[in-house]
Each structure stands twice: as structure tokens, then as C-alpha cells.
């Protein structure tokens, strides 16, 4: 469904993505994992074309068989990709309802929009309760639900979420993951960026590991879970004394 090939993205003179490639199959939940600064957010922003106009510098991105790496963000949204950014980014002075409406900005079918609004308010009862409140006054968890609900309003085929569990309690994190799973069961393909590797591996069908702007591992979660490196550095389960192991891991990762 989505095919990223040899993407290079630069921030002025800094290269953030060193030619990454991956593919996402329709209907899957795919996790993109990696430590801070690995380039996960940059990858999503590159796909959405939110960076400078001349980025990605190299490589191609195809969605449903069409090149999208030189399209406008607006066209990409229309094609069916929706993005829940890191830190929610709701419109703080718009009401919850107005935020949800903005999610449907690219659509014209009034009846369909109204149906989807009803559906989302049903799925997120807390948003229904606060529909006329300013979004800036919602709690972090409520804002995350709003950001997800808003992103669903464009009827995406692919939903990309950047660290949806950021700053949420374990209980709420679990709720968000359950919601993501439900959305996936309704037929939406999901690309999930997470720091919470444990949870992400539990809910995803496939996972990519990123380091320093490269994809260093790609495998099924059940295999990654049993991998010693992953256990030690992402799940925090030590199997040998660390510093040495860490150095060995860095070396391995760098020379791929």
C-alpha cells in the first residue's frame, strides 16, 4: 500500500534520513520503533510532505501505486493518508466540535461528514461530553483522543500516529492502543511510531527498528521480542552487563 524507497531527508546541512526503505501492507498495524532522534518523526513528516518543498532530497514514496513524494500535503490527505502528530497539536481555541470538523476539511459530502461525526462521538464519549469546550482545556489524554478522532474524519486508508502514548498513564495508554486496534479492525492500515516498545510490539503485526536515520531491523514482533539486543536496549531487560554490550550493539547497527 505504501512503499518508501531510499528516502534521504535533509534539514539544511544535516542529513536526518540516510536512505531508508520500507513497505506497508494493506490492513496491517506496522510499528516504527527507535530511540530519540532516530528519525521516526522525520520519516512521517517526509511522507506527509510537511518539510521543505525540496524534501525528500532523494528516493521515492508510492501510495496505492502513485508517486506522492512531490505532492502537496493537501492532495496526500485527499488520497487517504491521515497523520496524528507528536504532541497532539489540536487547535487550542477551537471547540472540540470545530476541531473534529476541521478533520473533514477536504470532504464535501455533508451527509457522510455528519454520519462520521456521530460515529466518532460514539466511539469517544468523552469528546461528546465536551463537544463545545475549547480543545486547549482538555487533558492530555482527551486531546489525544481528539487528535485521533479528528484524523479519522478524512476517512483515511492509512493512519499514521506519532507517539500516541506520550505522557499518558499506563491505563490510558492501554485504552489508546485498544482504540488503535479497533480502528485497524474497521479496515484502516496503521503506521505507529512508539517509544513504548513493549506495547507497540504487542499490538503490531510487523515492526521496523530505526537508528541514526537508518532502518536497522525489520521483522515480526514475536521474533523481535525474543531478540537479545531488542530485549536489552528497547525492552530494558538486561541479559549481560551493559556497556560492552551496548558498544557491540552500536557497532552492529552502524555497519548495516
Amino acid at each position, binding site marked *: 500500500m505504501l512503499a518508501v524507497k531510499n528516502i534521504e531527508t535533509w534539514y539544511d546541512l544535516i542529513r536526518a534520513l540516510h536512505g531508508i526503505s520500507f513497505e506497508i501492507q494493506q490492513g496491517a498495524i506496522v510499528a516504527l520503533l527507535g530511540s530519540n532522534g532516530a528519525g521516526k518523526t522525520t520519516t512521517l513528516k517526509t511522507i*506527509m510532505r*510537511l518539510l521543505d518543498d525540496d524534501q525528500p532530497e532523494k528516493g521515492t514514496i508510492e501510495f496505492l501505486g502513485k508517486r506522492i513524494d512531490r505532492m*502537496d*500535503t*493537501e492532495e496526500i*490527505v*485527499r488520497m487517504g493518508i491521515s*497523520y496524528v*502528530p507528536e504532541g497532539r*497539536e*489540536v*487547535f*487550542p*481555541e*477551537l471547540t472540540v466540535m*470545530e476541531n473534529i*470538523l*476541521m*478533520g473533514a*476539511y*477536504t470532504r464535501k459530502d455533508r451527509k457522510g461528514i455528519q454520519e462520521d461525526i456521530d460515529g466518532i462521538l460514539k466511539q469517544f464519549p468523552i469528546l461528546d461530553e465536551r463537544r463545545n469546550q475549547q480543545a*486547549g482545556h482538555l487533558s492530555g489524554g482527551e486531546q489525544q483522543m481528539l487528535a485521533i478522532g*479528528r484524523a479519522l474524519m*478524512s476517512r483515511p486508508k492509512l493512519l499514521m500516529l506519532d507517539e500516541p502514548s506520550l505522557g499518558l498513564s499506563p491505563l490510558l495508554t492501554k485504552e489508546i492502543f485498544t482504540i488503535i486496534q479497533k480502528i485497524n479492525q474497521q479496515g484502516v492500515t496503521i503506521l505507529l511510531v512508539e517509544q513504548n516498545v513493549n506495547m507497540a510490539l504487542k499490538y503490531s503485526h510487523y515492526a521496523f527498528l530505526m537508528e541514526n536515520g537508518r532502518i536497522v531491523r525489520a521483522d515480526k514482533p514475536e521474533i523481535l521480542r525474543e531478540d537479545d539486543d531488542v530485549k536489552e536496549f528497547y525492552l530494558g531487560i538486561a541479559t549481560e552487563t551493559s556497556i560492552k554490550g551496548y558498544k557491540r550493539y552500536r557497532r552492529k547497527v552502524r555497519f548495516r
Partner: protein
Amino acid sequence: MFEMLLIEGLAIGACYGLFGVAVAIIYKTSDVINFAQGEMGMVATFVAYHILTVYNVPFWIAFPATMVFAILLGMAIEFCFLRPAKDPTVLGLLIITLGAEMLLMGLAGWKWGAEQKDFPFLLSVTKTHEIAPDLAINEWTIGVFTLTIIIMVSLFLFFRYSKLGIAMRATQQNVNAAKIMGIKVERVFSITWAMSSLIGAIAAMFFAARSVLDPNFMMEPFMRAFAAAVLGGLTSIPGVVIGGLIMGIIENFFGYAWPEWKPIVAFVVIILIITVRPSGLFAKHYIKKV
């Protein structure tokens, strides 16, 4: 006498308010005080003057034609001056608008000359209607009040209920999130400048009808409208209009009692208010995310 002073003050204040709204709309979206605002209104007024006196067409044709011109002018300035600036700082943007101001002023001086002209406005300042015993107000004042109310109600409805209006507010609050929604933010900027230029041009024509028309005539009204907008908080549109009304009333009453103080009294009051409430009287507490 008191009623006269009050009504006149409110009328001129409504003009400040309208012009302040033009400034505030751009400030909210582009994060910059548009110092070319006065001159944009000035050029539009000159275009109206030109259409009226050179082509000799009736006012009801000249007025809409000028409105169209003002809209195009606003979009052109955004497109030629603001859009090419990549990741500009606030100071950079400020300089850009100052550059646009100089350019427009030079252009007007070159095309229409520096001598003062009478602007043949539809509504006269001298023709009055008696609305109550002993209380006569002129056509100009009636026009100002009518247009201010129409514009304010339209703006309210537009920003509150229309999809584009909500999208404009969304863009003001978070450009990146707006892009993610599929909002064409460049178009939003363009429309913002068009709206602002339109409102500014209407207010400028009212100013011109009260004074004279020359390339400098909007300098002082701009400063006062700007001050009124700051007084009202710059981010709340009704606040800006109320700021304008307060400004007009203060100016008119003091001007009557102490004519020699008229030009500065309003500024003194504003400085006093700003020292007590730096964000203006009606500013919202929300701070824009960077």
C-alpha cells in the same frame, strides 16, 4: 452638545476600530503588524478617486470596483512581499511591510502627485438628518455606523459558522496542524490579506471623506487605529473595535475641552492602560505556540 460629541467620537472611533480590525486580522494570521496597511488603504482610495473623477462613473460602480482593487492589492502584497520570505523572523517581516509601505507611497506620489485633493464621497459630512429634537447627525456618521455593524456581524458569522472561517482560525492557531488537515494555508494567508485590505480600504475612504486626500493622509489614522487595536488586545476583533470606540470618545471630548491636546491625549491614555494591562484590555490569555 454632549450627545453630539459622543456620537461624533463614536463615529470616528468606529473608523479607528474598523481599521484596527484590518490590522488585527493580519496580525493574527501572519504574526506581523502590517505597517503598509495605511498606505494600502490610501492607494485604494486614490483608485476610487481616479475612477470617480477621470472616468466619471457613478459612485455605485466606483465603490465595488475599488473593493475589487483592494482585494487584489492585498493578495498581491502577500504574494510578492510576504510569501517569498522563507522562515522569516518577526523583525524581517516588519521590515518587509515597511518596504511595501514606502513603495506604495512612492507609487501614489508619482501617479497622483502630492497636492491635496477633495475626495468626492457619496456620504457628506455636512448634510445632516435630525434623528431627534436638537440632535442632528450627518450622513457620514450614519454610513460609518451602518457599515461597521454590517462588517462586524459578517465577520462574526464568517469566523463562527463558515468552514473557511473556522479553517482561518485553525491556521492562526497552528499552521502545521492546519496543513495536516489538508487546509491550503497559503490560500488562507492570501484570503486574510484580501479581507484585511478590503476592510482597510473601506475605512480609509471614510477617513478621506472627512479630511483630504494626499499620499500621507493615512499616516495619522493608521497610528491611532494601531494604538486602538493594541488597546483592545490585537487578538480579539470585538476588543479592537471597542478599543477604537474608546479612543474616538476620549479624543473627541478632550479635543473639545482642550483642543491643543487633541493629537496626543489618546496616546497618553493608551500608554497608561498598557502599563497597567500590557496585553490590552480584551486580549485572550492563550499564548500562541511557536
